[in-house]
């Protein structure tokens, strides 16, 4: 059950609303979940930093009352590495689009995962480049239409969660905007993990992805999330055939291991002895 909290206490009121997101965009639902998770964990806003990239998703940081840094396209994780490594007491949340994180920012993504630096990386996956008007993304499923794939996308897409696990992230999960309740919980777990956590959230972009692919309005796209989604537990009993067009949600990987900032304390200790 969603507990009712004062979401407004986490939002910036001055001049910042209405937001730039389209009516029906899923990004606001994710923002709500992030706020509820932070509230549930009782984190001090002064010690929370949100770093974001460029895209519709990147604008998330503008609206929340944390220490917010809106960076350059693809580089949010590298900026966040500086913030976190520079001031480890900050809880660091990183918001990126799918193109932002997995295309232009792919290198930073795998290296942040490898280092297991303590931060939570959110991939707002709308399967397309929203901000620039609907170009194909490394997450656009094969066969789908984008403004630069008018004849149907013929490139295979990334599974961001598998990539994250392979690169070394210590907590990896996927949620959807339809299931906001469980998203709140997943996010809370991700933030609590002392290491690099990845939360991929499937979010509808009715304005562009929906329109190009005739997926219907925002409500219909949300419903589709329900229909197309199976949980990790359900997926375990399904054949590859059955899983073909399904999106699997839940926690895929939760395996704490040494974290970068803590490991650096050992570097300091060794250095002081020499």
């Amino acid at each position: 059950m969603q507990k009712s909290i004062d979401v407004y206490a986490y939002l910036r009121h001055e001049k910042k609303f209405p937001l730039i997101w389209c009516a029906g965009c899923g990004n606001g639902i994710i923002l709500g979940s992030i706020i509820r998770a932070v509230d549930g964990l009782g984190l001090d806003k002064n010690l929370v930093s949100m770093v974001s990239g460029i895209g519709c998703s990147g604008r998330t940081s503008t609206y929340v009352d944390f220490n917010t840094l809106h960076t350059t396209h693809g580089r949010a994780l590298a900026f966040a590495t500086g913030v976190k490594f520079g001031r480890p007491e900050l809880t660091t949340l990183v918001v990126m689009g799918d193109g932002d994180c997995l295309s232009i920012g792919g290198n930073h993504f795998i290296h942040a995962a490898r280092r297991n630096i303590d931060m939570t990386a959110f991939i707002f996956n709308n399967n397309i480049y929203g901000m620039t008007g609907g170009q194909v993304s490394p997450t656009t499923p094969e066969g789908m239409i984008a403004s630069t794939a008018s004849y149907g996308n013929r490139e295979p897409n990334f599974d961001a969660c598998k990539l994250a696990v392979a690169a070394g992230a210590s907590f990896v999960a996927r949620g959807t905007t339809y299931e906001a309740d469980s998203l709140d919980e997943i996010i809370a777990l991700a933030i609590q993990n002392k290491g690099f956590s990845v939360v991929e959230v499937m979010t509808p972009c009715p304005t562009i992805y929906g329109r190009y692919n005739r997926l219907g309005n925002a409500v219909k796209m949300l419903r589709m999330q329900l229909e197309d989604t199976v949980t990790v537990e359900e997926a375990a009993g399904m054949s590859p055939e059955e899983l073909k067009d399904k999106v699997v949600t839940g926690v895929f990987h939760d395996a704490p291991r040494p974290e970068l900032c803590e490991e650096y304390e050992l570097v300091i200790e060794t250095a002081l002895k020499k």
Partner: protein
Amino acid sequence: MEAKLLMGNEACCEGALAVGVDFFGGYPITPSNEIGEIMSRRLPKVGGRFIQMEDEIGSMACIVGASIAGRKTMTATSGPGFSLMQENLGFAAMAEAPCVIVNVMRGGPSTGMPTLPSQGDVQQARWGTHGDHPIIALTPSTVREVFDLTVTSVNFAEKYRTPVVLLMDEVIGHLREKVVLPQKESVEVVNRAKPTCPPEWYRPFEDNKSGVPLMAPFGEGYRYHVTGLTHDEMGFPTTKKDEVDALNQRLHRKIRQGFEEIMIHESFLMEDATTAIVTYGCVVRSAKTAVLEMRQEGKKVGLIKLTTLWPFPRIAFENLSDQVEEIFVPEMNMGQLYREVVRVNHGKRVVRKISKVDGEMISPEDIMRAIKREGGSGAKVY
């Protein structure tokens, strides 16, 4: 302090540590490698932090992030890496994040000549990132000066809230000289001005007399927004023309107001000179020898050493006597600063370039030969 034999790159680290740099993010590249290596060993001993990033895009991003989190930050690179840093260097200018980028210049273009010197990145230091941003770039010509200018670079970065480029050439980076470094206590240390008001009063990009807003580090109670988008004084994106103009004007004004202090230059035997050599970096060393030798021959030659390259130190020329009829600008590029010298002399004197791009340092003989060959011919007047 006793004299030590130090390499330019080592002196850079000594300067950085003396002035309180406590965060270094970088990626290896010749001929700057020693800087990252030394910082990786020294920083953890003094409460600082070192991280080797996945590339130079990440290095630049990470030192800006750490700067906003309250650290004094630096990176070091060379041409190809400097190219990759440009986008986030622009971000640092826009977000007013103090940081220092050391570029030990090697031969270009492209991968060029990793182990050979050049001064090919002078204009890139000015205009490498897009948009009409201000920048400060300094360039040393001795090992001791590497120490001093690293200190000055960090201090300018903190005072003006701007990225500062320390442009070294490979000759200076790898030169070993006997130097006496100042006592740590006598090194001037400037720290960014922080707000003291209650957080709800804080306007993170508010103008003031200096044009440099007070800077709160993340995590100390002042929650605010930083963006590379054009922003208002609260840090939020704006396209309102009065707010856009105010930001752009202020970014330039804050540096302009410091011109007097920022435009560092020195004169050597200029009192009675009729011919001036204007140069910077390692070429200053050859130019000094050339001046002394030509003076032996009775030629009235002097030297103007440009320590600051950007903003271009035009004040070095403003009070130049009318006696000076000719200026020679030796550079290890095709004339990148020569054009600036032409510009600020407004056609008052003949300006000639001496370019060398063969991977070797310009020698005193190169300079003397050019002056003897072309000097006094008066042919090219600008």
